[in-house]
């Protein structure tokens, strides 16, 4: 059986799982059992089959697990979003459709050789910085929860950071492919551009006061530098610089400071100042409210969870227990309803997806492809770690999305384009290795 047929079999398996999950949520919400709910499932399934068909013509030899794993994550995301708010799920489904369109578009556009992207590396680099700074522009940017991550054009909301992540990986793959020999020698004068990137990360952090994104970009950067040069000193030095920079900014940025305090001490037994309403209250009722409520939600799931559709996310009068549960806290919603078993399964899906991505990097033939795949796969791992780790109080909580799962258009779009790139690299690696 060839790669694409195996992909189709995998997709069918994912379809069965997704139908079961979505079916549970649908039955729980509508309180009836009928085939009506399957219409929604069929539409999403058709989209993925469409993506598969495009793959047949463009990336015939690509890894057969990448698309099904992304479909599984998307299915989980849609199910949880539907469970939380059907209207949101509908919007999310539109974004998934657009994401798959972007996926197909990328495959078709780059079907001959994606490596032409390498030529545009500096454009990607500058665009990435530009995109990251967009939300800081007056009139365009919008401060949500004290963090500048969004831009507003008319009624359209857009989080450019997600696209910037993709551009950053493309830039670094091209740049490091070109400079890796030079950098590997470790001469001080070659470190200039690296320091510039560090400076840019700090600038972004200062501008957006978003520790999570800064950590993600810089982590991806360090990971790619390590793979390109093989020098741990860069990683260590970079890490020290980042920590030092963050520590310096820590005192300057009240927002970051607050996040760290909430992380270390989410519960207080005495009332502390609550900036939200200017009164004194327990921290779990104010700054760490979201985090604490999310932990309650996760813990309530226990081993097996409450069952899909039977979790508790609203109070008796219908108010949301955890604000923004469908984006940053989607993991706590999932954890409550499917328990430790389901939560661990979700993380395992990410682990498999990352491993497959890394495998693509291993078998790729040229430096650009290797670095590109590494950057995409490691970025996926790091982003997953930062957001779920934040929700689980492993690291300070920062608002970034869970790839493919969280509600949010720009995130879905960027992740599907990233997936397309991975598949392009995978396809090329296979055909060149067979040609030899």
């Amino acid at each position: 059986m060839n790669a694409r047929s195996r992909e189709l079999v995998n997709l069918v398996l994912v379809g069965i799982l997704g139908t079961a999950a979505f079916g549970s949520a649908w039955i729980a919400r509508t309180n009836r059992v009928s085939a009506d709910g399957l219409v929604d499932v069929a539409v999403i399934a058709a989209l993925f089959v469409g993506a598969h068909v495009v793959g047949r013509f463009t990336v015939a030899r690509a890894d057969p697990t990448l698309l099904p794993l992304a479909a599984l994550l998307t299915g989980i995301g849609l199910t949880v979003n539907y469970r939380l708010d059907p209207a949101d799920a509908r919007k999310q489904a539109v974004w998934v459709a657009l994401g798959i369109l972007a996926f197909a578009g990328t495959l078709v556009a780059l079907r001959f050789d994606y490596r032409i992207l390498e030529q545009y590396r500096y454009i990607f680099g500058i665009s990435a910085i530009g995109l990251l700074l967009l939300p800081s522009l007056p009139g365009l940017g919008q401060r949500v929860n004290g963090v500048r991550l969004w831009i507003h054009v008319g009624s359209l909301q857009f989080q450019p950071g997600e696209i910037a992540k993709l551009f950053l990986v493309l830039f670094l793959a091209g740049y490091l492919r070109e400079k890796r020999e030079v950098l590997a020698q470790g001469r001080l004068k070659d470190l200039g551009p690296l320091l510039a990137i560090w400076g840019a990360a700090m600038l972004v952090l200062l501008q957006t006061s978003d520790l999570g994104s800064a950590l993600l970009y810089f982590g991806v950067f360090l990971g790619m530098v390590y793979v390109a040069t093989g020098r741990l000193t860069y990683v260590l030095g970079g890490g020290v610089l980042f920590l030092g920079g963050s520590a310096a900014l820590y005192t300057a940025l009240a927002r970051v400071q607050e996040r760290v305090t909430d992380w270390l001490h989410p519960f207080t037994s005495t009332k502390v100042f609550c900036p939200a309403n200017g009164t004194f209250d327990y921290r779990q009722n104010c700054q760490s409210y979201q985090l604490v409520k999310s932990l309650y939600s996760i813990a309530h799931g226990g081993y097996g969870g409450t069952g899909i559709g039977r979790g508790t996310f609203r109070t008796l009068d219908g108010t949301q227990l955890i604000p923004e549960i469908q984006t940053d806290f989607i993991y706590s919603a999932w954890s409550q309803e499917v328990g430790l078993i389901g939560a661990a399964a979700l993380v395992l899906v990410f682990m498999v997806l990352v491993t497959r991505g890394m495998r693509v990097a291993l078998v790729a033939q040229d430096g650009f492809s290797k670095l590109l795949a590494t950057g995409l796969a490691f970025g996926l791992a790091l982003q997953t770690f930062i957001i779920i780790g934040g929700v689980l109080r492993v690291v300070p909580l920062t608002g970034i999305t869970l790839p493919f799962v969280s509600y949010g258009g720009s995130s879905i779009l960027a992740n599907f384009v990233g997936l397309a790139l991975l598949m392009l690299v995978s396809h090329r690696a296979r055909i060149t290795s067979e040609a030899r």
Partner: protein
Amino acid sequence: MNRQILRLSGIAMILLATLIVASTYWQTWARADLAAKQDNAIQRVAQFSIRRGAITAGGRLLAGNKRKFVDGRALYFRRYPLGRLTAHVVGYSTASRARTGLEKSLNDYLTASNESLSTLVDRSLDQLRGRPIRGNDVRLTLNLHAQQVALGALGTKCGAVVALDPRNGAVRVLASAPSFDPNLAENRFSAFSRIKADCTPAAPLIDRATAGLYPPGSSFKVVTAAAALESKKFTPDSVFHDPGYCVEYGKQVHNFADQSGPEVFGTIRLHDALVHSVNSVFCNIGKTLGAFAILREAERFGFYSPPPLETPVDERRASGLYQSGKLFFPRRESQVDPGRLAFGQERLLVTPLQMAMVAGTIGVGGVEMQPYVVSRIVSPGGKTILKGTPSRIGKPVSRDTATALQDMMIDVVRRGTGTAVAISGLRIGGKTGTAETGVTGRNTTWFICFAGPDDGSPPHLAVAVVLEGQTLTGGATAAPIARQVIESLLSQPGNP
């Protein structure tokens, strides 16, 4: 580069594996801690996804559920079709405040979180089928007709009526007035503070039947007489001289002015002293026996510990001496005035439930049965999980003492202070009580009795009635209410 890529994947795997470890921590180790946190609203809401068991008595629904859909989930809210009739004993279960009554003490059964095997099986099956968890149903021993009669007879007065079957302890009536509508507990709790009654504050939320503490007055003479006979220092025929008062610490303590007989009885037997409720006689008995002997007898009847019942322990109060709001057992004889204690004054405070137990114990010949109000707890599958079974508390008095006391109490009804309760064809023995609070028109009046068919069988009923703020005596105010309750229970079959 491949070595670095492998290492980097290793790091990525470690990072992601950390998440599984952290999830495991929160969902297993820390789970109980977080569930117990006070601001954990999930726990509160989750309770409402359980279809709470029904509480019924005699086939009538006292507490049922109203289903509402919130966020696509069925939630069950409590409703109480009979409202104020059984508000105190059933209590309420709301989202906004703590539970009370049986809703609180039987919460585990009502929400199927008790650990009996059949509940465990039912609950797991419900969960597997994706159905709401169904709680166990609770059936009560109450007789709702009699409960209605008692509450109606209390009217706007403040007080309580307890009726139980002294042969097994099954409680038939637990009425406390003023009552409240438990359906309003969720959203209109403040309405309860506006409930008016003949007393201030009306305190409608207090279950006066089990937690109302009242000076027992002369009704306590039954306990004193029991102590006297048990001590063997006295017999029913022991003769006293009643000058109309008793001298204590050089002061005269007078008989109650408005008794059914002459104020000064002269030479009188113990038997008749109880029948006519002569204070001076009991005062002298008290001085002879001492406070300890009386209190120990009281303790044997169950004083000094909250009377056993299925309601929450904080809704039951122990009878006994109270000093600055606290239960108090004297360490030295001199701390208590035995004369005043003997006729139920001093700092003695008792609950109606305790006094019904005293009357019933004497009625059945000295064996005290544990009161119970839950006759059965039935699983959703129809299996009986728990059955209210009669159990003995103890034997506070010997059969001889009990028989002698029965005779005295029967004479109270026949020709003494309690004639208002006499019903032809029934064998009724009782004792009145009128505790003066020092303010005219503010007496606490009592009637306690046992009653049954006049065929030599043990009485079917023990009743205690207490009323606050009365101008007249217990015989005139409380006894007629006791009579109505006895009639409602013994002249109609009702629920067994």
